[in-house]
């Protein structure tokens, strides 16, 4: 076990040589299984995942081959007291981000007050001029917010980034729990894990609570998917199934007059709320990208006149931009009059001359990201990069400084993970999914992503990261 005690990183399982309270029972219970039994369980889990079709496609690979996300059976555990603080922080952030979105599509008070530079917002590629003056139901723009968190110490959490558009991965959170309950029923019996299976209900209530003003009677909500060949299709169908909502493609919807309808075998049926899992640009070929085949012509007109609600609102992405990110603590103070509960990672913005100089001089110690990138594509992890990689990346930054930000390499906490030689510490992050509707809801759990390679800090599934079940247990369990 000595290898589990690398001092530089916070170890979520061990405090020196002492087990932390959160992991006491779990270690004891897992000790009952022999390595052979565990190997068998792991194979069983993979069979179930594949049979259920919980696969994802990696873009750029041949035929977009269907792959499994590596699943680690060792859960990542939070004590309830730790979780409550996180929960308050996440909800606070979700409220502030929505207040910001309403503001920048109306009077822009935060910009007038000089707290955020105007060009950062109004010249942002994710800023959507056609949204100016539109007020969505309950003034909510982003209804499902995924906030990526990392831990660096006992009570130390940093927000890595916010995802205000259509964060994915929640189906893994739910399926990981299902699999764990199926394979290790005694663990749950003993550990009193807080349930998360009300998430689909909470999501449905959230969607129905933002039905547009013109909706009379029971609102009809649907999920809009780009189709079965999208990398996250499994999740779209899973959520539709769990919520009992229709899963529609763009060609199933059409606009007639003031409303949007879906084509059914019994004729047109009006749709009031669209939880869209396609990007802004593809929503409506008449308003955005004219080549879009997955959108609905005329949808934005219906939206503007209050005939339909789109979740999340077009243009919500301006709040999760990596440059705007640095101002979120300021938003919390400005709109809510509170101090931020969760910390931001210090960020250097390469469009500022001083920052750029610093970044270029210290590339080997920094993590550099593209402002509009996602999924772990196109980033540089300085400490893990070769000299040549650093030089090439430096040249890219110099060519277009405004497209990059840099952050210190965080000492991501480790969580025990099954690897070939047994249990070993691997770096993890956490994405809880906050729902914003009539109420702000956060189920006690989230998606823990784990970097399966020793020492690696990149947890994205497209880069070989795995997932774990995430538990919140009572402090005295």
């Amino acid at each position, binding site marked *: 076990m000595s290898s589990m005690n690398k001092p530089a990183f916070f170890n979520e399982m061990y405090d020196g040589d002492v087990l932390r309270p959160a992991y006491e029972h779990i270690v004891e219970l897992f000790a009952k299984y022999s390595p052979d039994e565990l190997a068998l369980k792991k194979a069983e889990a993979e069979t179930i995942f*594949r049979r259920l*079709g919980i696969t994802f496609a990696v873009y750029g690979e041949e035929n977009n081959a269907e792959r499994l996300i590596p699943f680690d059976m060792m859960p990542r555990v939070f004590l309830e007291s730790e979780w409550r603080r996180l929960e308050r922080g996440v909800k606070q952030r979700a409220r502030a981000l929505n207040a910001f979105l309403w503001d920048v599509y109306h009077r822009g008070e935060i910009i007038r007050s000089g707290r955020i530079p105007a060009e950062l917002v109004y010249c942002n590629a994710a800023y959507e001029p056609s949204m100016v003056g539109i007020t969505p139901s309950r003034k909510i723009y982003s209804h499902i917010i995924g906030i990526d968190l990392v831990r660096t110490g006992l009570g130390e959490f940093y927000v890595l980034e916010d995802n205000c558009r259509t964060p994915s991965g929640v189906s893994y959170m739910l399926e990981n729990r299902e699999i764990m309950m199926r394979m290790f029923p005694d663990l749950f019996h003993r550990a009193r894990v807080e349930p998360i299976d009300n998430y689909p209900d909470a999501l449905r209530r959230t969607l129905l609570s933002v039905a547009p003003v013109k909706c009379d009677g029971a609102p009809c909500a649907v999920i809009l998917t780009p189709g*079965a060949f999208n990398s996250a299709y499994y999740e779209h*169908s899973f959520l539709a199934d769990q919520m009992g909502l*229709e899963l529609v493609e763009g060609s*199933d919807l059409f606009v007639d007059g003031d409303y949007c309808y879906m*084509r*059914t*075998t*019994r004729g047109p049926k009006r749709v009031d709320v669209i939880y869209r899992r396609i990007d802004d640009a593809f929503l409506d070929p008449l308003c955005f990208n004219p080549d879009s085949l997955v959108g609905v012509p005329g949808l934005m007109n219906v939206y503007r006149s209050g005939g339909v609600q789109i979740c999340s609102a077009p243009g919500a992405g301006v709040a999760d931009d990596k440059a705007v990110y640095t101002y979120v603590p300021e938003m919390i103070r400005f709109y809510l009059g509170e101090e931020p509960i969760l910390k931001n990672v210090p960020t250097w913005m390469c469009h500022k001359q001083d920052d750029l100089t610093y970044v270029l001089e210290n590339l080997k110690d920094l993590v550099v990201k593209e402002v509009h990138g996602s999924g772990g594509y196109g980033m540089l992890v300085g400490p893990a990069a070769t000299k040549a990689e650093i030089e090439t990346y430096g040249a890219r930054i110099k060519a277009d400084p405004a497209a990059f930000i840099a952050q210190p390499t965080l000492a991501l906490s480790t969580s025990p993970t099954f690897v070939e030689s047994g249990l070993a510490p691997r770096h993890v992050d956490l994405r809880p999914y906050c729902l914003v509707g009539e109420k702000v809801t956060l189920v006690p759990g989230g998606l823990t992503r784990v970097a399966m390679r020793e020492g690696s800090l990149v947890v994205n599934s497209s880069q070989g990261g795995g997932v774990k079940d995430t538990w919140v247990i009572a402090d005295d369990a």
Partner: protein
Amino acid sequence: MLSRTAESLYWAARYMERTDATARLLEVGYRMAMMPTASGGHANEWESVLAAAGAAQGYANQFDEATKVDTAEFLIFDEANASSIRNCLRSARNNLRAARTAITSEVWEAVNESYLRLLDMEQKRNLSLPELCDWTKRQSAVLRGAFSTTQLRSDGYDFFNLGYYVERADNTARLLDVKYYVLLPTIDMVGGEIDRFQWLTLLRALSAHRAFHWAYGGDISPDKVAHFLILNPSSPRSLLFCAEQVDRYLKHLSLANGARTPADDFASDMFEALGTARIDEIMAQGVHDFLTECIKRNARLHRLIGESYLFGAV
């Protein structure tokens, strides 16, 4: 229900039933190939099989001669053959994937496992042709079973069954036509040992030779088999039975939707025509002509179902 979902269910059932029919056709082929040819001449079972599968042209583009190995490869695994078992299974899976919210996890798992297993078998090539045929028939039965034991009896169930019976009627007509038209062109062989054996094989391939004996007793004769596969209301593959089921599921749909469709009218006409037909009249008219007509009407029915329920509307 979304029109697209209805269409996906309909097609998934058609593709699944087609894998079953192709496996049965192959079974007819290899059983007949085991029979020595009376004339000592060249046996053409595999050409008949390809013709019945509607794959003769596609096959001829790739191969010169119809052999067992090439025919089996073409009908089971070939990427270029849109109706190969592999392609049908993949299409069934894609359709069910697109309709994932309208099916139970048992149904999805059944089709997904079949497909993944077939890919595995395609690589390993460790099964003989009879084993592959048996396996395919079993997969189709498992999916059918999962569907009928777990699905909600809603309109999705009706669309799925429509697909099944439209496809099955087509397949029965084609199978029967192989025996009638393609396989035995010389009149002097009618009633001979080979003739009898071929009828028996056809019944076996439809898992119906025992049922046939229960229903008719005595010797196999062409008119009895034709009656069994065309007009017998209790034979689950007969054209009459399929027409009855299609009529039933269409009625069920239009009752729930509150409006009759052109497909309803056409299907009840088909059902009525078959219900009042007589086998001696069909034999007099010529079975091949009769079957050709049936296949055409079935295709028209397929189009009408699509038009009535907005399949493929954009």
